């Protein structure tokens, strides 16, 4: 691997990310699957870095999931997104950040469509006015939440107490990075690093002490894709996509996987369980599985937060081996206790994957 070659590519795909005053759009499904991720993001950006981030209680889904399943026509999606812009304008903000990568993709697509076909923007303004009476301004800057963490990765490193190194051997942790398809595959210049060699997560990992692995199926979709996944009979397609990625990265023996898309996180985590039950195969030594972390969870770990505050007990693939590797001190007994110390209940033990208590 000639790293200079990659650096040349990365330098060609840089983008402008706003500094402060963000309007935060949450993700539909993220809080169910990865509780604590969005909270950790707000905690880091607001409390630690003292940036101004607001969200509006009136905000709705961006309907990206509906658009990508052919359930919601594009005109409706444009109008709903325009309403989000209106909420942002009414609060006096012009920098939008999204938690979900599909929101980012849909909003980028809409902005580009409006740019090339101004009549669609005019029509959307009319629809919004008729439906809600709101007016909006197009955001000055649109970024994904991982872009923000990327932008402030050095500050996070300075404030943080932990590093992505193996505490026993001192070696860098080997990390696989997986970018959501909607981040840069459609509009390579809207993603840091472009479509072939996206840099947004690599930048984070490298500055936080880890080592990034390049493997042949790096570009492959995880299979989420909305439309094929929603119908149960099609899930064979989705799981085969994820399996292909695992088969390819197995030879590199990664310590964990970092993603910036909620769907990808979900799939890479849950499908390891399904593959282990269906075929008895896991992709690590001694059936531990490869833990999947969101970028906020990694940032939170680097900052020194308690893993159970980050919601890491909800992961299908147990994170304890990784936490032990990193030398994170956590209380295993508190895993399934809530804030008041009462038990939250506990899951059933899988047949193949190791699961710690």
């Amino acid at each position, binding site marked *: *691997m*000639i790293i*200079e*070659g*990659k650096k*040349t*590519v990365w330098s060609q795909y840089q983008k402008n990310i706003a500094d402060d005053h963000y309007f935060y759009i949450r993700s539909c499904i993220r809080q169910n699957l990865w509780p604590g991720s969005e909270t950790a993001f707000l905690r880091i950006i607001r409390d630690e870095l003292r940036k101004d981030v607001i969200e509006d209680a009136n905000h709705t889904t961006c309907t990206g999931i509906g658009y990508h399943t052919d359930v919601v026509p594009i005109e409706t999606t444009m109008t709903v997104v325009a309403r989000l812009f209106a909420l942002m304008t009414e609060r006096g903000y012009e920098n939008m950040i999204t938690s979900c990568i599909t929101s980012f993709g849909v909003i980028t697509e809409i902005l580009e469509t409006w740019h090339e076909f101004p009549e669609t923007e005019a029509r959307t303004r009319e629809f919004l006015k008729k439906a809600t009476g709101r007016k909006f301004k197009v955001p000055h800057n649109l970024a994904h939440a991982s872009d923000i963490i990327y932008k402030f990765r050095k500050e996070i490193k300075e404030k943080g107490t932990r590093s992505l190194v193996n505490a026993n051997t001192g070696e860098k942790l080997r990390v696989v990075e997986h970018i959501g398809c909607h981040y840069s595959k459609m509009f390579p210049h809207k993603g840091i690093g*472009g479509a*072939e*060699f996206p840099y947004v997560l690599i930048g984070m990992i490298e500055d936080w002490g880890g080592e990034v692995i*390049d*493997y*042949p*199926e*790096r*570009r492959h979709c995880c299979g989420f894709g909305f439309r094929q996944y929603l119908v149960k009979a099609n899930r064979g397609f989705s799981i085969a996509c994820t399996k292909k990625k695992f088969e390819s990265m197995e*030879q*590199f023996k990664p310590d964990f996987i970092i993603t910036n898309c909620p769907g990808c996180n979900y799939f890479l985590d849950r499908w390891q369980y399904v593959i282990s039950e269906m075929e008895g195969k896991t992709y690590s030594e001694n059936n531990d599985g490869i833990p999947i972390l969101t970028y906020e969870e990694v940032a939170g770990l680097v900052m020194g937060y308690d893993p159970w505050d980050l919601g890491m007990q909800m992961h299908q693939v147990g994170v304890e081996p990784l936490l032990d590797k990193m030398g994170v001190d956590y209380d295993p007994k508190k895993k399934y206790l809530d804030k008041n110390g009462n038990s939250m209940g506990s899951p059933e033990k899988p047949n193949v994957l190791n699961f710690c208590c």
Partner: protein
Amino acid sequence: MNKYVFIVGGGVAGAEAASQLLKLGFNVTLAEKESQVGGKLNQWDRLFPSKRKSTEVARFLAEGLSGNNFRLLLNTDILNIERTNGGFSISSGTAKFQADAVLIATGYDVFDARIKEEYGYGIYENVITSVELEARFKEGGKIFTPKGQEPKRIGFVHCVGSRDEKVGNHYCSQVCCVTAVKQAMEVKEVLPRSEVFCFYMDLRMFGLQFEDLYREAQEKWGVNFIRGRVSEAAENIDGSILIKVEDTLAGRPLKMKVDLLVLMVGFVPSAGTQNIGKILNLEFTPEKFLKPSDEHIDTYSTNQKGVFIAGTCKAPKTITDTFADARAAVLKIKQYLEEDVPGK
């Protein structure tokens, strides 16, 4: 006859045109930016279709460049050309020259394969270009990967930088298909136990003996041909390259591991060509090569009277065709210089 011709570019076209003009009695100044004439010919080992040594042709080129009427300027860049009373004044930064006619033979560059990010050139060590492979042939002996291992499987990717909307080059670079077949056979010659694959979209075997080369590659050397465009190349943990291609003839996607991936890079108009064209206000084709006056009956004159073009600065060409092109341009120049036009 005291007419002076200034030739910009000492490649095959420029050098051959110089030879022929000298034979016809003209004074010739040949300016070449490198330290020797011959252009890209000096980088090739053996030439298609007969696989004869390029040094034989280079020697032939050099033989004609002598005499009192010939001046050779090596390591010289041309900075400006202006019209002056019926002729031209050419300046190289350190000196000025006068001429009655100018021949542009600034040639081509190979496509920069780094632009095709998906092939990983410049990022993965075992991805090289056909130009680099040819240099290895010139050095002689076995072919090794950049890390010094003997490759067991070599893949050739056709149409890199040609016939490609994404990099802006729609045209076919003509010679890469036959070069790939030639190089595939040459690889089999030095590594007989290796497996060689050519991944093509079409096989452009237009010359008289090119189909025979294709047949020889299949029959005698066992080169495998897979019709399909390689979509991406990625690196395995041992440094070998995993490629994905559709085997269009089987109708199924295919993946395989190769130890060395050779990219057949196409022609792009050279920086010198683009520069000179701007200096002289010459017309460019949509592909950014220099545009001749007429596509059939006069491909040597330009929109500028007294300025002529020869060789690959106007389109991709084989060496055989470049020789013919240079000689035809010479005839045009001769006719121009012997024209009796008052006040020229």
